[in-house]
């Protein structure tokens, strides 16, 4: 495909869509699928066929529309309305040309002026809910692959890296390493063979940001990876997806096939000398394989265990070659930065954290789902305006960010702006974007115990502090739950926190104590209240 052909394809698809009287998007992300959106879509498709509306009305799947707790969600293109919890029968009313029919669904129509929608800013999720994730034409109609075309025909790799550096984009996997700097490190490494890896081994309990991006807009990730590959000088990419993400895997396979067929991946992309292939690698269920060195070992066919860094992957990565490894959301940010410019991106967010962040809002909050907000948005805004607060009759207690590596944020710190530094300063982390709200029925000791059990199960067993330490910490926390813990146990727990943090081999072990440390910091009284009167400690 040439650049001209890309524009032709875009215009052709836009014209086709403009001729439609109505296009109905049924959310086909995992959340809505689980509450029956597929039957809604099938009913609509059958009725369109039966009424002979083909060419006038079209129904298609779409990515996540955000308000997962109210699924199945359906959006109508002509008026931009979103309907919640539609049954297949009700959905048929949308097909009629008579506006009265549609008014019968007024009660199910979501108020788009609700803060849930108005307080969000969608960059990564801009296409989610607006395109059919199974159609490359839809993505191209929304301006897709134009960033890649621009990069390949108008920019040098150095200019691309400069642009990403100037944008201030930082890694969305959790650690927040400046993306442009990482790209530059890989570019500067000697050697002809380099790799680009997309880390889609999202594993934090309650987090589904990356899954939604892959399910709703897979081509965007491919485009971001191709741009990165051009910038660092790689010809081969891998997407490492966790095996549990069946739908994401399916959509990615389809997207890769489509992109290859349209010659948007493969040799001589846009008739340039640049070629890039992408292959999928499916994880087998180990959380630790989200750690970059373990992920690389897993792609190499080895046991998924981390190794000592340095050397970091940009220096020695996949098969010993320089390797760029970024998260799904990081790659998804790349095409809009190229299209709209670094200055646009840098104007969003805070001094040190640019752009937006996608959060998976879950737990004791009215609106659960996927939200995207500018960096620096106060946590209170996310939880109480967008999330709608804690349901009736309950009190907010804490917000958990960053999953098993993160911490709990108490009510008095709710005004903290959500950016990398501010969250770290209060003992939590940005993490990949899991955000779990806890109400006053939750015991913080139990929260800590839950995450410790998770880390214990997911420890790879390579280094002693993590393997044997998480087991001991879990045992002690169980004793707290059973009110059998002594003061010596509390001291030992704190000592183990320091040990794991300072001596573990990889990030999993180093951050495993975080949920314990942050609950000890803000909710110590709950631990104290569960101490037994009995004297003595272990053995």
């Amino acid at each position, binding site marked *: 495909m040439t650049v001209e052909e890309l524009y032709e394809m875009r215009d052709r698809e836009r014209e086709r869509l403009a001729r439609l009287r109505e296009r109905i998007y049924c959310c086909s992300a995992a959340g809505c699928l689980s509450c029956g959106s597929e039957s809604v879509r099938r009913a609509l498709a059958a009725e369109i066929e039966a009424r002979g509306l083909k060419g006038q009305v079209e129904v298609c799947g779409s990515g996540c529309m955000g308000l997962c707790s109210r699924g199945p969600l359906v959006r109508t293109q002509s008026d931009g309305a979103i309907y919640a919890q539609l049954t297949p029968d009700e959905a048929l009313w949308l097909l009629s040309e008579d506006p009265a029919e549609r008014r019968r669904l007024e009660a199910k129509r979501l108020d788009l002026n609700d803060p849930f929608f108005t307080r969000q800013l969608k960059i990564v999720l801009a296409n989610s809910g607006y395109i059919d994730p199974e159609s490359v034409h839809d993505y191209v109609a929304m301006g897709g692959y134009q960033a890649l075309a621009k990069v390949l025909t108008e920019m040098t790799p150095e200019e691309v890296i400069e642009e990403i550096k100037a944008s201030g984009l930082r890694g969305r996997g959790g650690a927040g390493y400046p993306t442009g700097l990482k790209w530059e490190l890989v570019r500067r490494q000697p050697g002809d063979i380099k790799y680009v890896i997309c880390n889609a081994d999202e594993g934090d309990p309650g987090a589904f940001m990356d899954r939604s991006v892959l399910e709703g807009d897979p081509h965007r990730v491919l485009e971001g990876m191709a741009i990165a590959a051009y910038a660092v000088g790689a010809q081969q990419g891998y997407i490492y997806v966790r095996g549990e993400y069946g739908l994401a895997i399916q959509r990615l396979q389809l997207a890769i096939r489509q992109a290859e067929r349209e010659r948007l991946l493969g040799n001589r992309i846009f008739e340039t000398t640049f070629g890039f292939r992408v292959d999928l690698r499916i994880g087998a269920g*180990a959380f630790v394989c989200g750690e970059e060195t373990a992920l690389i070992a897993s792609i190499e066919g080895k*046991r998924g265990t981390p*190794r*000592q860094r340095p050397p970091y992957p940009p220096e020695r990565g996949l098969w010993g070659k320089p390797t760029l490894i970024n998260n799904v959301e990081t790659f998804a940010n790349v095409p809009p930065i190229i299209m709209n410019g670094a200055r646009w991106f840098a104007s969003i967010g805070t001094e040190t954290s640019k752009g937006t962040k996608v959060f998976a809002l879950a737990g004791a909050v009215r609106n659960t789902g996927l939200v995207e907000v500018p960096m620096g948005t106060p946590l209170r805004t996310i939880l109480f305006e967008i999330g709608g607060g804690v349901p009736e009759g309950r009190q907010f207690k804490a917000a958990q960010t960053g999953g098993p590596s993160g911490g709990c944020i108490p009510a008095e710190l709710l005004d903290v702006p959500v950016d990398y530094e501010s969250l770290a300063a209060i003992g939590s982390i940005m993490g990949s974007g899991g955000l779990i709200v806890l109400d006053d029925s939750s015991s913080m000791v139990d929260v800590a115990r839950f995450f410790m059990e998770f880390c*214990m*199960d*997911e*420890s*790879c*067993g*390579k*280094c*002693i*502090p993590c*393997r*044997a*330490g*998480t*087991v*001991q910490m879990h*045992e*002690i926390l169980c004793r707290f739950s059973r009110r059998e813990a002594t003061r*010596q146990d509390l001291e*030992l727990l704190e*000592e*183990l926190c320091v*040990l794991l943090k*300072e*001596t*573990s*081999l990889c990030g999993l072990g180093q951050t495993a104590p975080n949920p314990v440390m942050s609950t000890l910091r803000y909710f110590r009284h709950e631990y104290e209240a569960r101490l037994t009167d009995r004297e003595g*400690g*272990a*053995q």
Partner: protein
Amino acid sequence: MSIKTLTIDGRMVTGAAGESIFDVAWNNGIRIPRLCHVGGISDVGACRLCLVEIEGWPKLAAACLTPVEEGMVVRTQTERLRRHRKLIVELLLAERNHVCSVCVQNGHCELQDLAAELGVDHVRVYYRFPRLGVDMSHERFGLDHNRCILCTRCVRVCDEVEGAHTWDVAGRGVNCMIVADMGEPWGNSETCTSCGKCVQVCPTGALFEKGKTVGEMYKDRRFLKYIVTAREKRQWIR
């Protein structure tokens, strides 16, 4: 070969570029504790006992995997490191069933020596008492999982020196187990050459020669030297 000069525990020492802090320290008589490192095979930095403090580094570094640099200031024996090492040994002792009084290796076991050296006179963490088996299917050797600390010396020596790769680790976290082939009884292994290298490098009594009773299993320490020579000079001499 370029020479690096650095300070370890207040002493000026020199090492070749590319040498690890661990090797340079030991060459200069500064003993850093270790359980997973053994000369002649690759390092994995898994036991975390050789962690040292390096001035200007935000984190502790595994001495066996950190190459020396010019002007480095390394401390191997601080109060913090001593405390961490002690707790790590306690974790190991509680993880499986290390009953010295009935062990073939009693009196000359690296784990036991290290516990004594670090002053581990009692264990504060909870003993787990897992139920683990003993593999006595091999003609000449035995594997007692109760005494295994998962240092993976056996895995590496079998892979890197003998070239058989009979051993590997199966399972995850605390359920990790050393397995022969794809989880076969050792005696059924089709890859094992019965060379006994794994037995000699094992720091505890987990791998032992059959027919030895309490305290009788002496590991051939020259074997380590033999491996180094084999590796570096390609000569098979004891």
